[in-house]
């Protein structure tokens, strides 16, 4: 762009010593470009790094939290307590969550949230009945979380990721096991 101007300028000003002037002019133009680049870089690099910081931040367990090993799970659900450290900028929270994990016959890991869909009490798994039962108003759920009594909806699940023998839990999602 500046080349264009420089050239245009040449044609109507300096006539004498054309060739020499060209090279000097070119040199100056390049130096100008370099200086401009230095100025621009000095100012914008910190700002751009500032802006893209969230991309470069190590995503340490922001989405999924490791809770246990697959090998420890059976077809009978077990209770696991875990903490999620949710940091959203300057808003930080560390809620403790409970999940009931089991491995079904095919080896798929499922994790249910024990919050009763009736009024929010915490349900427990009663192994003798092979059911989840709510202590408050007697709601019952199958081991897949399907609502049998009292509760209007099946228990929610956690999204589960299995990686290298470890189980990772993420967001709470509506139950999709029981619709199958």
């Amino acid at each position: 762009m500046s080349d264009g101007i420089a050239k245009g300028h040449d044609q109507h000003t300096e006539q004498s010593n054309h060739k020499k002037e060209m090279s000097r002019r070119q040199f100056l133009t390049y130096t100008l470009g370099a200086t401009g680049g230095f100025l621009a870089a000095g100012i914008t690099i910190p700002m751009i790094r500032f802006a893209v910081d969230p991309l470069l931040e190590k995503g340490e367990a922001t989405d999924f939290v490791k809770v246990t090993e697959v090998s420890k799970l059976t077809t009978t659900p077990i209770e696991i307590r875990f903490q999620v450290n949710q940091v959203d900028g300057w808003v930080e929270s560390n809620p403790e969550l409970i999940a009931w994990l089991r491995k079904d016959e095919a080896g798929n890991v499922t994790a249910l949230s024990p919050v009763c869909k009736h009024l929010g009490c915490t349900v427990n798994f009663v192994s003798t009945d092979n059911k989840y039962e709510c202590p408050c108003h007697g709601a019952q759920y199958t081991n897949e979380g399907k609502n049998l009594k009292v509760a209007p909806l099946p228990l929610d699940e956690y999204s589960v990721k299995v990686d290298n023998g470890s189980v990772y839990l993420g967001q709470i999602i509506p139950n999709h096991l029981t619709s199958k």
Partner: protein
Amino acid sequence: MASSHNKDEKIIYVGDSRVPQKNHESVPRDYMAYPGKSEVFIPNFLLKEWMVASVFMVGFLVLILVDPAPLGEIADPTNAQFIPMPDWYFLFLYQMLKYPYLANKFVVFGTIVIPTIAFGALTLAPFLDTGKERRFYKRPISTGLMLLSIAAIIFLTNVSWMHYEEELEAKGLKPEKHATGGGKKKEEKMGVMAKDHPGFAVFKKATCVSCHGADMKGMSAAGIPALLGVGDKLDQAAIMNIIKNGSENKKMSAQYDSNINNGITPDEMNQLAEWLSKQKKTP
């Protein structure tokens, strides 16, 4: 460029067909009127400007790295201790309001009349100072007024700043600089040291806890200092002295006897002082 090589091929758009196309090239301004060597703006002169800008920028970045922008505690409208200070470039206006004929009943002079006259005169300078003469030493009135104003601004700013520093000292305050950010980071690193020392057990039993707290962070609002890092400032003997005789500013009274009465042995008190002297910021 198309325009310079093949003039015929170039299409010139004229927004409204009724407007005749201007044919004259834009003519660069002629500075031949001024004696001496002139220089093209791009690239020769701009390069020099940008060199200056580069030096300026490096200095600017160094300033930023050396002195980070301050951030005080979150605004607390009930904080009666805080001395309000405007940005430095408003200080001279602020200081002006402290003088009797520009304050209280006459405050309009200080806030409106004088600034309006000053800024108004400055803005209208070209219409007030209409002489042809441009050299400042041949324009004694305008130059004199300007120098006087500059002197007044410097003087007022300086007085205002000195006054602020005196006030800070009188109230025993420190300007808030990095109240939250930097401070918090350091405090988190600074925990209670040497927890297995017997003095720690004594500390929890003794009267210290009720003011300085089990986390030893004190209560800055009530003027109770943190004991974290106390070993950096005081040694065991000095700490014992404060426990026995109270602090120098009399905010803390002597605690030794009441602790002995509570069943803490003198040996344990010594352990306490020794343990406190081990509370250093860096292990």
